[in-house]
């Protein structure tokens, strides 16, 4: 077969596309130029199913609420520092309304001058709890704390697009949910939009080194047993990035702080079973489907103990690193940070000696 045969000239001479009538000159929709690329890390549908499934087992789900309840309580303590009433509050990604439960706790202020303080819920006229999973959100709808404050539950299809009007809420709270958000910058910008001017966004999320023990031991087990690594533990936001993220979303007067909660488990299986019961199992988009192989699980248990168990400890530790963040929507009359270098007082004189004095 000759080359000429392969590259045969077109049978017809090239046609000139001359408009036959004016009607043909109009342009039609072809393709939309994409905006910012949206990172897809987590499978939202998978996460939704995992949360739903976990909550259907009410007993186990309640038993494993220890982290969520603890963090919700610590998050709500931050409200003690803000001396104002909040008529309309949103709890974004409410899980089982752990924040509402924490808000109704009696006597939240340990430093109260009168010795007792009313529950925080007395300062909140209306709390809206939203989440994607109905089973989890309504799990505790019959509990007594529901009667102690005005609470509305709402199911929204997606935490990443909030169906609320601008300037709606006097505060937005969020506890242990936004680590599953794919597009955190966009979500934070939306939160900033739905807040009223000079209103706070207070959130807690898992970050950075959360579950680093499990991450590393699973990597080693995967490597040794199968010769490669597959993602088992979510990538998480680093503390250093949170300030930038809030700033970019338009928040002012940022406070970001970190706290580690280390929980001891009898073995790595108990940790993984608990994570599953919390609905916090792996939902990475490119994760391997199906259960982990028993060989890897067995290897992981041995490596986890060897690598992370402390001398004399009864169980294996698991670290949960919590990032707490507070950002305020810009508003008139809001206090602003002073110019850099304009300080007149030396903090060392103020706090005394340069030695660390405080510490509870």
């Amino acid at each position, binding site marked *: 077969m000759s080359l000429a045969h392969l590259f045969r000239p077109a049978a017809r001479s090239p046609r000139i596309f001359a408009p036959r009538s004016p009607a043909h000159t109009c342009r039609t929709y072809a393709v939309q130029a994409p905006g910012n690329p949206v990172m897809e890390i987590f499978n939202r549908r998978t996460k939704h199913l995992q949360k739903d499934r976990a909550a259907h087992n009410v007993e*186990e789900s309640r038993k494993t609420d220890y982290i969520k309840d603890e963090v919700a309580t610590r998050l709500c303590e931050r409200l003690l520092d803000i001396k104002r009433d909040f008529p309309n509050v949103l709890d974004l990604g409410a899980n089982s309304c752990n924040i509402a439960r924490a808000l109704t706790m009696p006597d939240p202020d340990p430093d109260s001058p009168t010795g007792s303080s009313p529950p925080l819920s007395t300062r909140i006229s209306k709390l809206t709890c939203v989440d994607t999973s109905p089973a989890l959100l309504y799990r505790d709808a019959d509990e007594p704390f529901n009667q102690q404050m005005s609470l509305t539950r709402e199911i929204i299809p997606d935490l990443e697009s909030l169906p609320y009007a601008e300037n709606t809420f006097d505060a937005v709270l969020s506890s242990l949910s936004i680590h599953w958000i794919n597009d955190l910058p966009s979500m934070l910008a939306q939160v900033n939009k739905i807040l009223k001017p000079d209103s706070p966004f207070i959130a807690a999320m898992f970050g950075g080194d959360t579950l680093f023990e499990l991450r590393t031991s699973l990597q*080693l087990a995967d490597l040794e047993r199968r*010769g490669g690594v597959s993602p088992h533990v979510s990538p998480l936001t680093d503390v250093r990035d949170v300030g930038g993220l809030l700033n970019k979303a338009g928040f002012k007067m940022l406070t970001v702080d970190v706290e580690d909660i280390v929980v001891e488990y009898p073995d790595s299986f108990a940790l993984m079973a608990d994570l599953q019961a919390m609905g916090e199992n792996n939902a990475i988009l490119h994760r391997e489907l199906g259960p982990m192989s028993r060989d890897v*699980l067995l*290897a992981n*248990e041995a490596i986890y*103990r060897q*690598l992370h168990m402390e001398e004399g400890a009864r169980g294996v530790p698991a670290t949960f690193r919590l990032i707490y963040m507070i950002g305020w929507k810009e508003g008139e009359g809001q206090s602003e940070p002073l110019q850099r270098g304009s300080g007149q007082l030396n903090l060392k004189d103020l706090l005394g000696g340069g030695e660390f004095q405080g510490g509870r």
Partner: protein
Amino acid sequence: MPSSRTRPIEKFARATARCSTEAAAYGKCVVADYNAVQKGMCAKEFLKLKDCYLAAAKKA
């Protein structure tokens, strides 16, 4: 899931717990050189651990 029925993972955990010596040997082997882990590096130790686990699982 009702707690009356033992979940597979609990059985798995219990059987594994009986093999702490083998597990420690395997763990030490991997962790000894964790910057250069290769597939099958500790195959011998792992097989011992797995044999022990299988025997323990059968007993339970």
